[in-house]
């Protein structure tokens, strides 16, 4: 059996030898991310069946968990790391041709680092290590957001950086408080002792951690950086940020709330926040005119849905939320990747510039449509299954509070339908802008078509046969909710 630590070590090593490869052969670096992520994908998927039986705990330096830095490759971690590797692989393939200008080698290094950071976040079992991986993720994304170097991306990068830095400081304060209280950094260890400390002091640390990680998770009102960053980054990076980075943030928040603190009682409050996030995201997206910004706001809305599912604190709710994580990662990555070449083609990010794309880039438009339909939640795409699960979970709580929130959340779905389907109409049924009338049909290069097509195929496949992920979802939800067995597994022997 391969050790999960390779999931971090190998890409990290590859990231650092990439510049050297670049020195040796000019075109080489652009293949490295794909290789790294292919490796990660294979390893995570092969580990997943084992993890479903029992989490794989990896200790470094031979110390037992409370003292060492350790990795916990549970069902949730490996599920997410597979997702990260999958999206990462597709984006890496896409990035081969998409990134032509600028410091390409550094782009590839940083893109690996983002993914490594995200993988680390979902696999680690140590709070401070979580912070470190988080910073790897954040810092490389600050840099990548500013990759194009034009005024918008630089500004977005700077703003993202400022907010991210504040968030990191908060996380650090929270970790400090935790360490002060328990003298330990292992999540399992803290979780085992959490009830032994008076609640207010703990709550302050919880508040700091939620707020700090929440910045990356884009929960309202911490999400102001998101539309800027997602819209200004290169589309491949937008796909990673939207598909993976914020999921890592939400994973961190969930781990903190569920596993470390077991703070189920603050969840109604989180549910309120989530519905606010959802509505604000969808409403802002509705009146957007910039396609990437629109997609970014829509991500906020979807995050609201995920947090809503998580806030139900029931097995069905959490697994529904994780299903939304998967469906949103697939669909949003698809949308960003597809729109990337459309934007490149038209040179404009106006929604109206996508008009008539259906004849100019038919396959890309088709995939875009699949993604949009999936996000709106239309069957037979994966978005339907995930939304169906969310609604089912909310109604199964039989709690009036959640039913009312669900009704409000469904308004968000309606708004989402309105703006996405307007874009789809534009793709196929609106005349192309004047200057583009004479353009002939021209698809993006294969390196872009393949990822987009694979994503679309996955959306349809999982939508038609949700059994593909369903088992992993249940186990992952259990991983998150069942503190005792988590503690036992990690501290066990």
């Amino acid at each position, binding site marked *: 059996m391969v050790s999960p630590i390779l999931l971090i070590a190998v890409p990290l090593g590859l990231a650092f030898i990439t510049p050297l490869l670049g020195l040796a052969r000019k075109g080489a670096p652009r293949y490295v991310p794909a290789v790294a992520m292919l490796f990660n994908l294979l390893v995570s998927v092969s580990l997943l069946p084992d993890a479903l039986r029992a989490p794989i705990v990896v200790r470094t330096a031979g110390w037992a968990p409370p003292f060492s830095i350790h990795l916990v490759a549970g069902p949730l971690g490996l599920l997410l790391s597979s997702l990260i590797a999958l999206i990462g692989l597709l984006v890496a393939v896409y990035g081969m041709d998409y990134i032509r200008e600028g410091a390409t080698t550094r782009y590839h290094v940083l893109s690996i680092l983002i993914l490594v950071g995200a993988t680390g976040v979902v696999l680690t079992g140590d709070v401070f290590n979580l912070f470190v991986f988080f910073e790897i993720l954040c810092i490389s994304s*600050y840099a990548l957001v500013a990759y194009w170097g034009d005024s918008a991306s630089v500004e977005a990068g700077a703003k993202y950086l*400022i907010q991210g*830095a504040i968030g990191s400081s908060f996380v650090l304060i929270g*970790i400090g408080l935790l360490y*002060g209280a328990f003298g330990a950094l292992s999540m399992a260890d803290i979780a085992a002792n959490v009830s032994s400390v008076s609640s207010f002091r703990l709550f302050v640390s919880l508040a700091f951690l939620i707020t700090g990680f929440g910045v990356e998770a884009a929960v309202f009102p911490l999400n102001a950086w998101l539309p800027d960053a997602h819209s200004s980054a290169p589309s491949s990076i937008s796909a990673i940020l939207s598909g993976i980075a914020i999921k890592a943030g939400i994973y961190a928040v969930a781990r903190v709330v569920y596993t470390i603190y077991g703070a189920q009682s603050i969840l109604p409050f989180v549910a309120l926040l989530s519905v606010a996030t959802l509505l604000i995201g969808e409403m802002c997206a509705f009146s957007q005119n910039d396609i990437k910004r629109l997609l970014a706001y829509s991500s906020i809305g979807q995050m609201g849905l995920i947090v809503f599912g998580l806030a139900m604190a029931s097995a069905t709710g959490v697994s529904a939320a994780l299903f939304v994580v998967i469906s949103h990662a697939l669909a949003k990555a698809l949308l960003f990747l597809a729109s990337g070449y459309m934007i490149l083609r038209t040179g404009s990010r106006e929604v109206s510039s996508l008009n008539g794309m259906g004849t100019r880039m038919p396959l890309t438009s088709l995939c875009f449509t699949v993604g949009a339909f999936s996000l709106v939640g239309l069957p037979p795409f994966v978005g339907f299954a995930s939304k169906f699960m969310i609604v089912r979970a909310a109604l199964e709580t039989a709690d009036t509070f959640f039913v009312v929130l669900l009704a409000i959340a469904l308004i968000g779905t309606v708004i989402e339908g309105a703006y996405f389907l307007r874009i789809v109409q534009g793709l196929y049924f609106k005349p192309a802008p004047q200057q583009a009338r004479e353009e002939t049909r021209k698809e993006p290069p294969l390196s872009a078509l393949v990822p987009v097509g694979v994503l679309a195929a996955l959306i349809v496949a999982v939508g038609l046969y949700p059994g593909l992920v369903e088992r992993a979802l249940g186990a992952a939800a259990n991983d998150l909710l069942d503190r005792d067995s988590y503690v036992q597994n990690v501290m066990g022997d």
Partner: protein
Amino acid sequence: MSLLSPSIHYVGCFSLVLIGLYVVLVKPNLIKVIIGINLMDTGVNLFLVTVGYIQGGTAPIFSEAARQPEGMVDPVPQALVLTAIVIGVSVLALALALTIRVYGHYGTLDLRKIKGLRW
């Protein structure tokens, strides 16, 4: 080692954090904001060190056999702080680099004028 014990260390580091936060919230100059972030970072690092510090403790090195672990300061926070400082420095470097680019594009560092992205 109580959190709210009347310890000047905690007051000091949290005032640093608050001063930093104040600067970030109030000052419109991007450089000043970055300075504020750095002040916060420093405060947080100080706090981390303080968490592991024991009044009158010694370095956690078993140089003499008589030394008991109880008298030693906790080494873990110091390791954490080292990491945090490294991270802080890299963020600072990136921030400053971005600041230069922002100035190049906007010709100003006034955050009230750097509003190309909004809504």
